[in-house]
C-alpha cells in the first residue's frame, strides 16, 4: 500500500502549518517529493535500512530527553509534535530506494544477528501511510481551534481511502459511504468534545474544593481542631519597583462574598481577557497614572492557576499563558502556564476595580447571627458612623484578642466562629477576617472576605521578596465612602511569629533558590536556544551518516531506465494498420508487447459486439501481414485500397465494454 504522489509532501506541509514549523516542513516536503524526479535510485540492503532506523531512534531518544528536561508535564505532546521529523530519515530512505519499500528484516537485524533466523520471511513493508498517520497525529497536538483541522484530516483520509477502495463498488456508492462516514465523524467528534467538556466541568466542580486557589470556594480552617500547619515552601518571588525596606506588601488572590458552614463562596464567573499585540501582554483594566510595577515568579504544579496580584491590577505582561480570565473580584486566572511562570504587573494599589457591593455583601448566615449580634450590641456598632465602626472593630480585635495557630473547633458553642468570639478570643487570620466581615455586614457596611499572601521576607540570595506558603493571609474588604478598602484586623504578631522561623530554613531556601535559577534558565534562555538552534544541530547528524554510508560504497545506485518494461518496439514499417492498434488501445484494451495481432484480437474479441467488425479486422490484418512480411509486399493499387479501408474502419471502431 503506497501513498500516492504528493500525498507525503502535502501531509508534511500540513504538519508544518499546524505546529508552526513551516520552513522545516517545506524543506522536508521538497526532499520527499523530489524522489519522484530523480533519475537514479539507491539499492539499500536491510542493514542499510537498519542504520537509518538507528538514526531515527537516536532522534527519538533525543526528543525524549529534551522534552523531559524542558517541560516534563507536556513531554508526550512534545514527542508527538516532533514525530515526523524523528522518522524523516527512514521515510526518505524508503522513497529514494529502488523498490520503494523496506525489507521487514531491517527492523530485526540487531536482535537476531546471532540466530540468523531465516524463518522470518522478508516482507516488503511500505511505511508511507504509517508515516502519514504520524504526521496527522502530530498535527493534532497543535490543538488548532475551528473546523479547518477536521476538514483537512478528512480530506487526507479520503485521499488515502481512494487508493484502497474496492474496485467492486461504483464510484457513487463509494462517495455515498464516504459521505455517511464524514457525517458520522463530524457528529461524533462534536459529541466527544461536548461530553468531555461536561465531564471536565463536573470533575472541576467535584474537586474544586481541593484547589487551594479556588476562586469559587475557599475552605477555611475554621472548623478544624488541632494546630494550623503551615509550610515553609517558597511559592512566590516578587520584585517591587518601588521597594521600601521592611515594608509588608499585601498580595491578593481571591475574594469571596458568601459564608456558610465555615467556608466562603464566590458566585462571580470569569470572563476572558483578550491579549494584546504581544501574546504575553494582557490588559486587565484601562491604564491610568500613576502606576506601579511588580515582577513575580510563581511556581505552579498545575497548568491553570489564579495569580497572586497586588490591588488594582491594570496590565499583566511578559507572561507565558495561553488564556487569561478575570472576574469581578479582580481575581485573575491563567491557563496553560509552564511550571515556573513569570509575570509583570502594572497596578494602582487601590481597589477601584472591584465590583460594587450587592445584597450578598450584607448577608450574615443565620447560625452566626447570635454571636455577631452580641458583639454589635456590645460595641454599640449600630449607633456610630461608618468610619467609627471601622476603628472600633479594629481596636476591639487588637486589644481583646490574641493571635494563635491553635484550632479549638466549636467546643461547646454553636459554631467555631462563635467559639472564637465568645470563648477563646484567640485564633488565626481566617477567624479575624471572617468575624470582621460578618460584623461589618451586620453593621450595614458591605464587606467581603479576601485571601492572598503577605510579602515581607527579604531574601539576600535573590535580592527579592520571598513569599512562603505560610504567608497566606485572609482579611476583610469594606465598602466605605463609596469605595472598597482593605480592612485587616489580624494582630500584627503573626508576622513576628513568622520571622522566628526563618533561621531553620536557610539550607532549604538556598536549594530552593538554586532550583529557581535553574528553572529560570531553562524556561527562558534554554527554550529559546533549543527552538532556534537545536534542530539545526540534528540535521547535519543525519547528513553525515548518509554521506558515510555512501562513501563506504555500501549503497549502490541504479540508474532507472527511462523506458517502462512493456516497451513496444519501434515498428520499422509504416503500415496504417498501426493506427487501428492505437485506437483500440486508447479505448482501454492494451496489447502486451509479446502478443501478435491475432492473439490480441482473440483475447479481446468478446468485447466486440459487432460480428462484421471482427471479420473486417481479420481481413485487414491479412493485408497488413502481407504488406509487412512478404517478399512482394503490396501493389500500388492494393496499398491505396488498404489505406482507405483502414480509414473507413477507424471511424466505426468503437468498442464498448461489456
Amino acid at each position: 500500500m503506497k501513498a500516492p504522489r504528493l500525498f507525503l509532501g502535502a501531509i508534511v506541509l500540513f504538519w508544518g502549518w499546524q505546529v508552526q514549523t513551516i520552513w522545516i516542513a517545506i524543506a522536508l516536503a521538497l526532499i520527499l517529493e523530489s524522489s519522484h524526479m530523480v533519475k537514479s535510485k539507491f539499492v539499500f540492503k536491510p542493514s542499510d535500512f537498519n542504520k537509518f532506523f538507528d538514526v531515527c531512534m537516536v532522534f527519538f531518544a533525543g526528543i525524549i530527553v529534551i522534552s523531559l528536561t524542558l517541560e516534563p508535564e507536556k513531554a508526550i505532546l512534545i514527542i508527538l509534535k516532533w514525530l515526523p521529523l524523528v522518522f524523516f530519515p527512514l521515510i526518505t530512505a524508503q522513497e529514494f530506494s529502488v523498490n520503494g519499500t523496506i525489507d521487514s528484516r531491517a527492523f530485526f537485524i540487531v536482535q537476531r544477528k546471532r540466530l540468523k533466523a531465516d524463518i522470518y520471511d522478508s516482507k516488503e513493508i511500505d511505511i508511507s501511510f504509517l508515516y502519514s498517520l504520524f504526521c496527522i497525529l502530530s498535527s493534532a497536538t497543535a490543538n488548532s481551534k475551528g473546523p479547518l483541522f477536521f476538514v483537512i484530516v478528512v480530506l487526507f483520509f479520503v485521499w488515502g481511502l481512494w487508493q484502497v477502495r474496492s474496485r467492486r463498488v461504483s464510484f457513487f456508492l463509494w462517495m455515498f459511504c464516504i459521505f455517511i462516514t464524514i457525517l458520522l465523524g463530524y457528529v461524533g467528534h462534536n459529541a466527544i468534545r461536548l461530553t468531555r467538556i461536561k465531564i471536565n466541568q463536573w470533575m472541576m466542580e467535584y474537586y474544586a474544593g481541593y484547589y487551594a486557589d479556588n476562586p469559587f470556594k475557599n475552605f477555611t480552617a475554621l472548623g478544624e481542631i488541632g494546630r494550623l500547619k503551615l509550610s515553609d515552601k517558597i511559592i512566590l518571588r516578587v520584585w517591587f519597583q518601588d521597594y521600601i525596606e521592611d515594608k509588608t506588601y499585601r498580595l491578593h488572590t481571591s475574594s469571596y462574598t458568601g459564608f456558610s458552614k465555615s467556608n466562603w463562596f464566590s458566585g462571580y464567573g470569569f470572563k476572558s481577557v483578550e491579549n494584546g499585540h504581544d501574546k504575553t501582554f494582557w490588559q486587565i483594566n484601562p491604564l491610568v497614572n500613576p502606576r506601579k510595577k511588580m515582577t513575580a515568579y510563581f511556581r505552579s504544579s498545575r497548568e491553570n492557576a489564579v495569580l497572586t496580584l497586588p490591588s488594582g491590577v491594570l496590565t499583566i505582561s511578559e507572561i507565558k499563558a495561553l488564556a487569561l480570565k478575570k472576574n469581578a473580584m479582580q481575581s485573575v486566572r491563567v491557563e496553560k502556564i509552564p511550571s515556573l511562570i513569570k509575570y509583570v504587573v502594572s497596578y494602582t494599589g487601590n481597589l477601584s476595580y472591584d465590583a460594587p457591593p450587592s445584597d450578598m455583601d450584607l448577608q450574615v448566615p443565620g447560625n452566626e447571627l447570635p454571636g455577631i449580634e452580641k458583639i454589635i450590641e456590645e460595641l454599640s456598632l449600630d449607633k456610630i458612623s461608618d468610619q467609627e465602626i471601622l476603628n472600633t472593630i479594629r481596636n476591639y480585635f487588637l486589644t481583646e484578642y490574641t493571635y494563635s495557630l491553635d484550632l479549638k473547633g466549636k467546643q461547646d458553642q454553636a459554631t467555631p466562629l462563635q467559639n472564637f468570639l465568645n470563648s477563646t478570643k484567640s485564633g488565626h487570620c481566617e477567624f479575624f477576617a471572617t468575624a470582621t466581615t460578618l460584623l461589618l455586614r451586620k453593621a450595614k457596611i458591605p464587606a467581603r472576605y479576601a485571601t492572598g499572601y503577605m510579602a515581607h521576607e527579604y531574601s539576600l540570595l535573590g535580592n527579592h521578596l520571598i513569599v512562603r506558603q505560610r504567608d497566606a493571609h485572609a482579611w476583610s474588604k469594606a465598602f466605605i465612602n463609596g469605595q472598597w478598602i482593605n480592612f485587616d484586623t489580624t494582630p500584627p504578631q503573626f508576622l513576628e511569629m513568622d520571622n522566628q522561623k526563618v533561621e531553620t530554613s536557610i539550607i532549604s531556601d538556598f536549594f530552593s533558590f538554586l532550583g529557581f535559577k535553574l528553572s529560570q534558565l531553562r524556561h527562558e534562555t534554554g527554550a529559546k536556544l533549543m527552538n532556534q538552534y537545536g534542530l539545526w544541530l540534528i540535521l547535519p547528524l543525519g547528513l553525515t551518516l548518509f554521506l558515510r554510508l555512501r562513501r563506504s560504497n555500501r549503497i549502490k545506485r541504479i540508474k532507472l531506465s527511462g523506458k517502462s518494461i512493456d516497451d513496444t518496439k519501434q515498428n520499422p514499417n509504416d503500415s496504417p494498420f498501426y493506427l487501428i492498434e492505437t485506437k483500440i488501445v486508447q479505448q482501454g484494451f492494451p496489447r502486451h508487447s509479446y502478443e501478435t495481432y491475432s492473439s490480441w484480437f482473440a483475447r479481446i474479441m468478446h468485447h466486440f459486439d459487432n460480428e462484421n467488425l471482427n471479420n473486417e479486422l481479420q481481413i485487414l490484418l491479412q493485408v497488413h501481414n502481407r504488406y509487412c512480411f512478404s517478399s512482394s509486399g503490396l501493389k500500388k493499387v492494393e496499398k491505396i485500397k488498404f489505406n482507405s479501408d483502414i480509414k473507413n474502419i477507424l471511424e466505426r471502431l468503437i468498442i464498448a465494454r461489456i
Partner: protein
Amino acid sequence: MLYRFFYKSYSLFYVLRHWRKRHFTPAGGMIITAVILSGILGFNILKTNLYQVLAFGLSIMLVSFVYSLFRFRLKVTINRILPEYATVGNKSVYEIEIKNLSSNTQKGLILYEEIQDPRPPLKFLLSKKEPFEHLRNAWDRKTLYFRWLWLTEKNRKARFSPIKLPALPAGETIRVAAKFVPRFRGYINFSGFTFARPDALGIFNRVHQVKKKQKMLFLPKQYKLKTPQLVSTRQYHPGGICLASSIGNSDEFMSLRNYRPGDPLRNVHWRSFAKTQELVIKEFEDEYFVRHIIILDTFLNSGNEKLFESAVSIASSYITPLKTHEAIFDLMFAGNNVNSFFWGRGLGHSKKMLEILACVEPCENKKVFDLGPTLEADLKKISSAICIFLGWDEGHKKVYQLFKKALVPISIIVLAENKLLMEEKIFQDKAAMAHIKVVQSDQILEMLGKG
C-alpha cells in the same frame, strides 16, 4: 501446568491472528492503528485535536462494518495447477484456475491460500528443541514462544501471500499466478481457499471459504556441491556399457564358443562360419555395474534438527547431478529398519530418491550409529561410498574402519555445531584427515561447494 497455559494462549493467539488477517485489509489495520493511537494519546480532549481523528476513524470503522454485513454470495470452482515439486529455498510458481459459476461478475476479490492447521500438539512443544535455542535468553526459553514459532513454521512449510484477483466475468475461467518460497521440506497439505471481499471503503473483509484439498512435496534444499572424486578399483578395466554410451563400439566381445541349440542367431559370428562352416557364437562380457553408496546418518542424539536438515540437504545435493547412465547408486539410512534404495541404469530415477529424502525423519528409538553390521554384508558389492554423519562415536568409527580395511574409496562428511571441537575428537589418526571433512551447518557452501 504453566506450559499448558502458554500452549493454550499461543494457540488462541494464532487463531485470533488468522482471523484478523482474513477479516481486515492492510488499510483496515492502518485505520485501527490510527484509532488506537489517537484514543490513547488524545485522552485529554482539550489539549489536542486527536479526538477528531479518533471520531473519524471510528466512523470509518462503523460504516465499513455495517457495509460488510451484506451477504457475500460466491459460486466458483477453483483448482491449483501445482508443479511436480518445489525445492526449499527456491521460488516456485504455480497457477490457480478459477471458474465463476454465478451469473454476475465478481470484482475486487482477494484470494488466500489455506493450509492444514500448522499448530503443533502440546507434546511436540515440550519435547522438540529449536535449533540454537541455547543462544536465546532465559525468558524466551522459559516461555517457549520461539519454539512455538519454529514448530508452526515447520508445519506450515511456506508462506503464501494474498492474491488480488482480477475481475471474474460470469461463466468464465481465469488463471492467476501465485508464488511462494518453501522453507521446510516435506509434504504440504492445502486444505482450501478463502475468498475475501472488502467493503466499499476497503477496511473489512467478508469471507467465503472453499474447500480444496491438494498435496505437494517440497524437496530438500539443494546446494551446488563438488562431487567427491571417488577413485574406484575398477579404474583400469574396460568399462562395458559405460564406455559404449560415450564412444560407440566397445570391447564387449569376450570370446567365441560353439553354437548351442537355442542361441540367438544374431549372435552368430559369420566370419567364422565362412571360414569353418561351423556355427560359432560370440560371447559377450557380463556387465558389471559399478555401485556407489551414499550413507545418511539419521541417529540424531544432540537434538539439533538443523544438523539433520543440513545432512539431508547435502545428501540430496550429491544425488541430483549424478549421472545415472554409468552406475547404480544406493541410498542407505536407518528408520525403524535399515532402508536401502537404489537407482540408476534404468532402475529408477533420482527424483524418487529426492522424494524419499524429502520425507526422511530422524531415527527416534536408537541413538547410536549402528549401520555397521548391515554394511558388512554388502561390502563386496560396493565400489565407493559417501558417508554423511551427524557425529563421531563408536559406530561411526567402526564403519570407517570397515571401509578402510576393505580398501573401498570413501569420503566422509561429519556435521557438527562446532567445527574445532569435533575435529579434535576425530583427528587422532592423521591418515583419516584425507577422507574426513568436518562441516558446520552454516558453512556448507564454503566447505563443500564448487569452487
